[in-house]
């Protein structure tokens, strides 16, 4: 089967720093891939490149065969890459349901004029969006707080809402940037189930950046390890756990010590 996401020789330079070099990855449908590495290894840079927040100095990204080069971020999202952020970026003063409806923007197509004149297309599509948004929220047990401001939610719920919002754009690939950051072990365990559910129910491929090894090892089918902008290892969780290069990247080598 052709990969959903095919990234070849991706690289970017910030001035004199080669932040990412020769990055290759093929992600199959419904696959969960982990991206790990020490701080500053270039993990979030990969996400920013995949969503065209940064433009690569080399290499290409193909999303189900479609070249996303040079496209603005919102179009990449439209074509099927959605993401969450390391530091939560919700629309805090807007209601929970509006956060989701904003991500449903491209599922509607009524014009500005139709909105101002309240034409039939407005009512029909808004009703459908309301229904979809509530369905999505109820899948994550959040329909009860639909009208609450997003910023008032507890931390874990805010992380979940970010995932809901990303799913509302109807993605093929979901990028999760440190979804378990700041969570306690029981919250992390719940998040792990959520991620599994998301993959099973929505049929998306997931790439996740995470420092919590219990989550990464427990959920990912394949793991890539980055260090100084290079992939130093990839394989199944077991292979990564025992890879001497990975241990060195995280803990340093015996000789230096």
């Amino acid at each position: 089967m052709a990969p959903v996401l095919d990234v070849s020789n991706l690289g970017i330079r910030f001035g004199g720093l080669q932040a990412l070099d020769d990055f290759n990855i093929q992600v199959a449908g419904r696959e969960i891939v982990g991206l790990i590495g020490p701080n500053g290894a270039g993990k979030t840079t990969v996400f920013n490149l995949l969503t065209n927040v940064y433009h690569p100095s080399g290499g290409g990204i193909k999303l189900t065969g479609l070249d996303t080069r040079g496209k603005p971020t919102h179009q990449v999202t439209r074509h099927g890459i959605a993401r969450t952020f390391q530091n939560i970026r919700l629309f805090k003063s807007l209601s929970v349901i509006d956060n989701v409806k904003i991500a449903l923007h491209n599922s509607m197509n009524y014009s500005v004029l139709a909105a101002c004149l309240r034409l039939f297309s407005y009512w029909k599509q808004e009703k459908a969006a309301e229904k979809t948004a509530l369905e999505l929220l109820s899948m994550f047990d959040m329909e009860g707080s639909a009208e609450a401001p997003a910023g008032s939610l507890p931390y874990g719920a805010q992380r979940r809402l970010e995932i809901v919002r990303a799913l509302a754009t109807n993605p093929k690939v979901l990028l999760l940037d440190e979804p378990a950051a700041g969570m306690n072990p029981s919250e992390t365990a719940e998040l792990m189930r959520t991620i599994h559910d998301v993959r099973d129910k929505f049929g998306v491929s997931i790439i996740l950046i995470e420092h919590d090894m219990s989550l990464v090892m427990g959920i990912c089918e394949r793991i890539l390890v980055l260090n100084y902008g290079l992939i130093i290892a990839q394989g199944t969780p077991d292979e990564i756990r025992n890879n001497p290069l990975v241990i060195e990247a995280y803990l340093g080598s015996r000789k230096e010590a």
Partner: protein
Amino acid sequence: MSGLNAKTPFRYALNAASVAGLYLLLMALIRYRVLNRYQALMLIPIGFNIILAVSLNLSAGFLGQLPLGHAGFMSVGGYAAALLTMNLNMPANVELPIALVFGGFVAAGFGVLIGLPALRLKGDYLAIITLGFGEIIRVIILNLDFTGGAYGLKGIGRKTTVTWVYIFVVITLWTINALIRSRHGRAILSIREDEIAAEASGIPTTYYKVLAFSISAGFAGVAGGLYAHYLSILDPSAFGFMRSCEILVIVVLGGLGSIFGSVVSAAALTVLPEMLRGFAEYRMVIYSLLLIGVMIFKPSGLCGKYEFSLGNTLGGIQAGIRRRILKRGGGVNGSGS
């Protein structure tokens, strides 16, 4: 913000009735001299200040940018509308709405032209660049022949009536309110909240910034047209930086992101200086102290983000009465058992 319930048609009817009712009330107050001639004339500046404030609120409060060139768009609309009516020979009540719409579109066009480069910047940088554009517009008008240059444009004719102002205030309030409560409005709000997240959620942020900015400019142009046909003369010096600041003060005082707040604040700040005339030279001191007071005690503006809704208010009153009746009924039952 979900106005999608079964009561929606009822609410529209209620709002339409109250808009008509308020108009009839104002007309009756003028007809029976409850408002004297001077007070009746004050309704017109109140009206175009409401349009100016609500339209600026779209880009300052809802889009979350800080433009300081609103008076520039007002002048573009004013001159465009005035030049049109001066060259048309139609009855005043036919050419005025045409001219106002024309002025609005010309101003909106300028909004696109200026918005495209200016909206690449944010915050104080955007404030400075829009301030610059506003001044450029003023200086250009000052140096063109067909605008009358520094002499200004004279003999426009007093065509603005309370009725026309009322109609265009209602159109402005309806349009901006309807826009905000749509997918387009949510896109505009999402840019205010977090531009990066908005883009990642599939919102074409540049498009919506320019859209909001130009709609805002367009309504400023309509207000400019009303202003021109109210004073009958246009003078470029009336559209300087201070005018932009006055409008911004109205918006901030009423609450960034509250249409209702802008309406209340525009009315209050238009009437207040007139009411304070009795204090002669202390007038501006009192005015400033009031502004400072509001900003200290209610920094989010008089209304914050509150929006008035007749349907909700009546619903609340109804629920309150029902609760009270139920309570009394419960008391009776309680004593009976």
